[in-house]
Structures are given as structure tokens and as C-alpha cells.
């Protein structure tokens, strides 16, 4: 079968100790049976390792930070498109998704660049600050959470939720506080990094299990693979994990994707309590950094996303393999000063 040529721009090239999903997404696309993919990397920093992975990333461009506003992002994408003729963009950072969702219709109508993301309303509905309501709507248990803007609110919320409780940032970071003093400390630490609000969440003890999934936006869950972390870094990231056979978890995932009509990739993070009940801790609105495990288990979610972005109907994956592991490793790339200079000064590599 002849593979179709497509050019896909991918962000999240930060394959670091808290890795972005870009490189795993690219590996999945490079292994596609349907597409011959040219990858255009979109980077925010000059030391994102993916910039220098020339076997995976064909050309890279720096793009402005989300704080620069949508106009400058659109201008930059227009320039990149003029050089590369992009077919699809897969944004992989939580913080940039808002801009890309808003730009989605313009990118499609003006430049014929496809994206495959939820609409803004669905995107906002699973936000950490309203996750409890999302759980009620989608019939899934969610620990009680409160959004706060000042450390002075910790005392009252602590009385309501009890200790320990989880202190979470708007986009990233979470710490378990055993005392009000610890909660105040984490509040400042996370707020300094990610801004306000901070979310205080009821602590549920049990085993963490995560699902990488993809929905078609019409209520169909196209694929879902559950995973348990086997080795966790000090940043709470999975450095090794194993795919699970868990019908209940797949059932819950299907229900969430169906009810919310989720469009695109996502990660559902659950705690399985001692009683065997599942609590949804977070729904991340993009593929997780371990999405390549799904490929290893027989479900190429990024390939399915590109197909749907290009307007194709994709049938749900009927099965996946459990008992498959992923084990990450770190790798020192040798980079010439000339390359570093090029991305630093010209914004292209």
C-alpha cells in the first residue's frame, strides 16, 4: 500500500525529566502504516531535546509563548506554513491548547491546516477547577476540590476537606500536604511557578492508574489503553509503566468520552481505592507523554488522530495487549554550537 504524504507540526519536544508528549507522538506517526510523515517541530525553548533529534524531527521552528497572545502565534504559524505547507498541527502543551482551539477554525478556513481538538466549552468543562461538576455530568466519582486565590482560604477549606489534602497548580504540579503549614508552603511554591488559582483537592488513597484515550467528537471512544506506573520520578512522572487489563476502567473511559463528546487525545488519571472504586483525579486534554505505550499495545492513537483531522472516519480499536511495559531512558545528544546558534538566533533548525 502506498503511504500518503502528510506534513504534521508537533509541539511538546521537551523530552526531559518531566517529558512532553511531542516525541512519543512523533514516534507513533513515524510508524504509521497509512502515512509517510514529515514532522515539523514547534518549540518554545532552545534546549528542548526534540529540536536536535533529526531522525524524528525533519525541521523545527520556535513559536511564541502563549503569553504573547494569539496574533503573534498566528503570524508565526502563517510563516511556518508558507515554508512547509502544513497539513495538520498537533499541539501537546496544556498551556497552549486554549490558543490553538481558538485558532483552529481560522487555520482550517484560511490555510487548510487541520487540528483535532475539543471545542472550547468541552475543553473548559474538564478543567481542574470544575472537575467535580464534570464528574457529576459524566457519572464518574471525583474527589471534592476547591479553587482558592489566597493562602488565607486554606484554613477554611482544610476544615472542610480534612488532611492530608492535595495542593494542585492550574496546569501542572501537585503535592500532598499533611498540615495547613505544608499547604501554605505548597501554595506559594506552585503559585510562583504556574500562577493562580490553586486547587485544593480531597486526598483519596489507593493505586494510581491512568488511561490514554482518543475520542472522535461524536461520542465514540476510538481507543483507550490503561497503564499503571511502575517507576515514578521525584516529579511524579512515570519512568516505567505497564498496560493493564481493566474492563471497568475502559467502561468508565468510554462513558466519559461518550458523554463529553471528547474530540482528540486525552489522558484520564484515576485513583483506584482500596474498595476498588475509581476516582477521576484529572483529565488532561492532550495525549500523555507515555502515549507510545498504546502503539506498543496495538493502538496507534496519534495516527488515528491525524486520520480524523483529515476528515476520515476511524473505527474504534477492538482490543489492545495488556502486560506490555514501557521503560524510559535518558540519552545525551551531542549538539554542535552551530545548530544551537541557528535555533537561538534564527528560530529555525
Amino acid at each position, binding site marked *: 500500500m502506498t503511504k500518503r504524504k502528510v506534513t504534521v507540526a508537533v509541539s511538546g519536544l521537551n523530552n526531559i525529566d518531566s517529558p512532553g508528549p511531542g516525541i512519543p507522538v512523533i514516534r507513533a506517526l513515524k510508524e504509521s502504516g497509512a502515512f509517510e510523515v514529515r514532522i515539523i517541530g514547534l518549540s518554545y525553548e532552545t534546549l528542548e531535546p526534540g529540536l536536535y533529534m533529526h531522525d524524528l524531527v525533519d525541521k523545527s521552528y520556535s513559536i511564541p509563548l502563549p503569553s504573547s497572545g494569539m496574533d503573534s502565534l498566528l503570524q508565526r504559524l502563517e510563516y511556518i506554513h508558507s515554508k512547509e505547507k502544513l497539513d495538520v498541527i498537533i499541539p501537546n502543551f496544556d498551556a497552549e491548547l486554549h490558543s490553538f482551539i481558538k485558532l483552529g477554525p481560522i487555520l482550517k478556513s484560511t490555510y487548510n491546516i487541520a487540528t483535532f481538538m475539543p471545542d472550547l466549552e468541552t475543553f473548559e468543562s474538564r478543567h481542574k477547577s470544575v472537575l467535580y461538576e464534570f464528574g457529576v455530568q459524566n457519572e464518574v466519582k471525583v474527589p471534592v476540590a476547591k479553587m482558592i486565590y489566597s493562602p488565607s482560604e486554606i484554613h477554611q477549606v482544610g476544615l472542610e476537606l480534612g488532611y492530608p489534602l492535595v495542593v494542585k497548580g492550574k496546569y501542572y504540579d501537585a503535592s500532598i500536604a499533611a498540615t495547613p503549614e505544608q499547604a501554605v508552603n505548597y501554595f506559594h511554591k506552585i503559585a510562583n511557578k504556574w500562577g493562580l488559582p490553586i486547587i485544593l483537592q480531597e486526598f483519596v488513597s489507593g*493505586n494510581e*492508574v491512568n488511561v490514554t484515550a482518543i475520542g472522535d467528537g461524536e461520542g465514540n471512544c476510538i481507543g483507550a489503553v490503561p497503564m*499503571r506506573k*511502575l517507576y515514578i520520578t521525584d516529579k511524579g512522572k512515570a519512568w516505567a509503566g*505497564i498496560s*493493564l*487489563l*481493566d474492563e471497568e476502567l475502559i467502561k468508565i473511559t468510554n462513558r466519559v468520552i461518550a458523554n463529553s463528546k471528547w474530540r482528540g487525545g486525552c489522558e484520564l488519571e484515576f485513583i483506584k481505592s482500596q474498595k476498588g472504586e475509581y476516582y477521576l483525579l484529572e483529565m488532561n486534554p492532550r495525549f500523555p507523554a507515555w502515549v507510545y505505550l498504546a502503539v506498543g499495545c496495538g493502538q496507534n492513537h496519534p495516527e488515528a488522530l491525524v486520520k480524523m483531522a483529515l476528515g476520515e472516519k476511524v473505527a474504534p480499536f477492538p482490543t489492545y495487549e*495488556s*502486560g506490555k511495559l514501557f521503560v524510559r531512558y535518558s540519552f545525551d545528544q551531542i549538539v554542535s554550537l552551530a545548530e544551537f546558534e541557528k535555533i537561538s538566533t534564527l528560530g529555525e533548525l
Partner: protein
Amino acid sequence: MQLNKNIAVSENGFIFNPVSGDSFSTNPIGQEIINLMKEQKDRKEIVKILAEKYATEEAILEKDLADFFQMLLSYQLINSHD
């Protein structure tokens, strides 16, 4: 006495629970007991077979087997040890 559904056991006695993601290694005797369980032998039959093979008193085997089944139960590899 049956292992829970979908529990995978390799020829070398490596056990994998695909629901929890846990994996375990057994020694040769543990492996033998698990193989007997997979052959649908009940507790009494397992005791009898092992007692004959290893010339051990059934009472001692009964106790050791109860400990082993308790461990399988705590690791969610069986649902009961009757």
C-alpha cells in the same frame, strides 16, 4: 481452587496479574502448586500429590499450603482459599 481470571503464569513461574499490573516470581514448589491449581486440582488433591512426591507429613503440607494460599489471596491472585 482457581487462579483469578486472566492471571498469566510463565513456564518459569513468573506470575503476572494484568488487572493490577503486579508481577511475582515463585520458587519451583510454588510453581508446581500453581500448575496443579491450573489443572483444576482441589486443595486435598494438591496436598496428597505433594505428600507422596516429597515424603512429607500431610499436616505439615496443609499448614504450608495454607500460608501459600493466604499469600496468593493477599496478592489478589485468588479470591478465596477454600
